[in-house]
């Protein structure tokens, strides 16, 4: 289990990020309210929430770019407010939008950050070359950075994040705006980094992708953590009904008529040769019984399968079912 409520003071062997009762107000607007979680070293954690939910505000406080109104954040034991320099050395931050510099090449950009992190001479050149190789930027090292595509730019931005070899990577919407190919490349890079033991904390709107990449997920809504756990736990815990796709040979009208009469079934979507059907009881026995009945009724069933709920749907269901916020 990655996330432990801090108040229980469970001895965490290797917790690298500790967030306790975090709050951030902007005037009268409470952007973050009492957020607490801990993340173990080497885990990939997804941070999910709608626009304005408090994701970026929380992340900016984690990387010392903003100060909490209340609460605390520790990165590898270092308080981000009291020891910002120490915390920064351990964190790499990739914002959702990175700015470009005029009149600067890819190499010069990374070289600048290498210098800024205090690397000298051959060591700096080695770091920059390693990062360029890892992010596949070597061939475009001489290209002006304001001519890069979005995908190349994101790789460059990730490269900059890695230049000082931080233990923790905080990535805000890293895959936003990327084409499918660049998205897959980026996902592979994250997997490689996770394999190297980096702790990765990333936010995204593409929930299905986060589900594939992350060990655990944190859901934030209205500035509060509303759910934390694995992809499976989310789809399982917040499932209220199942969707079954049934296909038949020939005219599906008989199928529609039968479903309309059957208790506990409802057509969700009419297909060319079948239907997606909402089933109140999604247990395996019930589904097997349903299939048997369909065949017995003389319907020529050619396909019958349960549709896996997507993470997005589970998320929406979860938001619908969560209790109203405490005023």
């Amino acid at each position, binding site marked *: 289990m990655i996330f432990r409520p801090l108040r229980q003071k469970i001895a965490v062997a290797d917790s690298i990020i500790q967030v306790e009762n975090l709050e951030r107000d902007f005037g009268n607007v409470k952007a973050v309210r009492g957020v607490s979680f801990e993340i173990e070293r080497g885990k990939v954690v997804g941070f999910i929430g709608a626009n304005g939910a408090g994701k970026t505000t929380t992340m900016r406080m984690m990387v010392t770019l903003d100060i909490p109104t209340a609460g605390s954040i520790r990165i590898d034991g270092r308080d981000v*407010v009291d020891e910002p320099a120490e915390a*920064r050395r351990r964190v790499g*931050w990739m*914002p959702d939008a990175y*700015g470009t*510099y005029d009149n*600067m090449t890819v*190499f010069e950009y990374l070289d600048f950050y290498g210098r*800024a992190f205090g690397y000298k001479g051959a060591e700096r050149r080695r770091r920059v070359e390693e990062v360029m190789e890892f992010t596949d930027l070597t061939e475009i090292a001489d290209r002006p950075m304001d001519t890069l595509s979005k995908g190349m730019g994101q790789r460059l931005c990730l490269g900059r994040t890695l230049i000082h070899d931080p233990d923790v990577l905080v990535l805000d919407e890293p895959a936003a705006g990327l084409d499918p190919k660049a998205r897959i490349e980026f996902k592979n890079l994250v997997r490689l980094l996770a394999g190297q033991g980096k702790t990765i904390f990333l936010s995204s709107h593409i929930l299905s992708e986060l589900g594939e990449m992350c060990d655990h997920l944190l859901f934030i809504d209205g500035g509060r953590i509303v759910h934390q756990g694995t992809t499976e736990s989310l789809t399982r815990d917040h499932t209220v009904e199942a969707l079954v796709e049934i296909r038949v040979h020939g005219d599906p009208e008989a199928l529609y008529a039968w479903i309309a009469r059957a208790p506990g079934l409802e057509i969700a979507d009419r297909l060319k040769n079948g239907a997606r059907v909402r089933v109140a009881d999604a247990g395996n026995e019930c589904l097997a019984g349903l299939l048997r009945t369909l065949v017995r009724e003389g319907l020529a069933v050619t396909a019958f399968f349960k549709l896996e709920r997507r993470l997005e749907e589970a998320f929406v269901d979860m938001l619908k079912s969560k209790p109203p916020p405490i005023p």
Partner: protein
Amino acid sequence: MASFAAPSDFADWLSPMLVKELRQGVRSRVFMTAFYLTQGFMILCVIFSLVAAGDGQNRSAFGFLTGLFWFLIGVPLILLMPLRGFGALYGEIKNGTLELVFLTRLSALRIAAGKWMALMVQTLLLVCSVLPYVLLRYFLGGVNVVDDLQNLVFLLFISGMLTAVTVAVSPYESRILRAFFSVGSILAVVVLIPVVVNLLVMSRTGGAFRSATSMGLVWAGAVLFVPAFIFLCLEIAASRIAPPAENHALTKRLIGLYFLPAAAVWVFLGASFSVAAGLAMLCLAVVIIDALAEPHQFVRSTRRAFLRWGRIGQPAALMLTPGWVSASWFLLPLALLGGGLLWLQGQAAETKEVLKCVAFLGGLIFPAALIRLFAPGTRFFLAIYLALQFFFVVLTVLVAMMGSFSRESLVLALTPIPTCTFLMGVFNSHEYSQHVSGILGVTMAITLGSLGILLARTITPLRDIRRALSQTPRQDV
């Protein structure tokens, strides 16, 4: 694997920000254009000088060409390069790149200093590129090459100060303030260029700076004030972009305190009291306005640093932590030091000098007190403050321009506004001299009242700090 030969064009010991800015800066269109135009105009200027020399050294033509020569050098050095400072930090803030730089080991001051340094190196490149033309003019005769080189160094000093000022205001994102600063700077420079060119031409033809003593005093003044002023400007820039946990108020306010003894030393070396005090006041005005405009934010770590100082930690934290609350308390030691030095200089007996000093302080804090009284929660403190000061200056100018009929009563009517009183004093208004004791009394009362309002307004935030500290575990504080 694709190979890439990494260039090693800049040494490791150079500031990372300087390297980055130079790489970008010397490729920028503004620098290239300024460089080519300067070269072109210099060539034309030398050709005209050659023609004038061939005509038998017509003195008026030669004077004109000398003026033109320094004007052509002055425009890029005093106008173009310093104006580039406006975009130094603003561009980074707008692009969202500054935050990424903060996450490195570079402090806000190193970032600001790197920006300034890079602009100065580019200015130096321009200066170096005109050196051959300075020497060419020597061969045409009638030119003292040492004077010319000295003039170039002075231009470089002025350029350095102006660039530092533009870098200092470059983090401001408010459009109103940026427009205000831009117009103000251009006006100041447009006024400054002819003044500087005139002084440089006069220095060639036997003007103000000819004597070795006065030149020595000018150099002494430059050494005493210019580096500190540039450092102050860079600290102001740094404080505007720094994370809240970095305390730049301490350095800025200590530099502010430094200007007072620096002025005293300059007077001791032989400078006129009015000039030295005027220069110190100009620098102090920057410190005080910046301090009073700082937003108040309580950060434990900045306060903790002071509490390590033992007994003086508490009062030091009260006066030297960031924000207008501590700035209000900082005014007390500043006023005491200023008063002490005034007394030591023997100027305390001069009512007019005392009045100027009191009106200067009052002029700076009176608008601040008005804002804290009537709009305490405003986010536009600096804009309102500058607007009020601008209004007071315009009011004074209008009164000064009026006929003698109603002027005395108007001058006296403006006495409750210390900014007006200060300006009247600086320009030696006749009416002002006649009622100096009465005006001093009113100005003193207004100044103390303004200070009282500011200090009273700090009570609530200070109580909040005390409450926050009492809720924090002792070892954390």
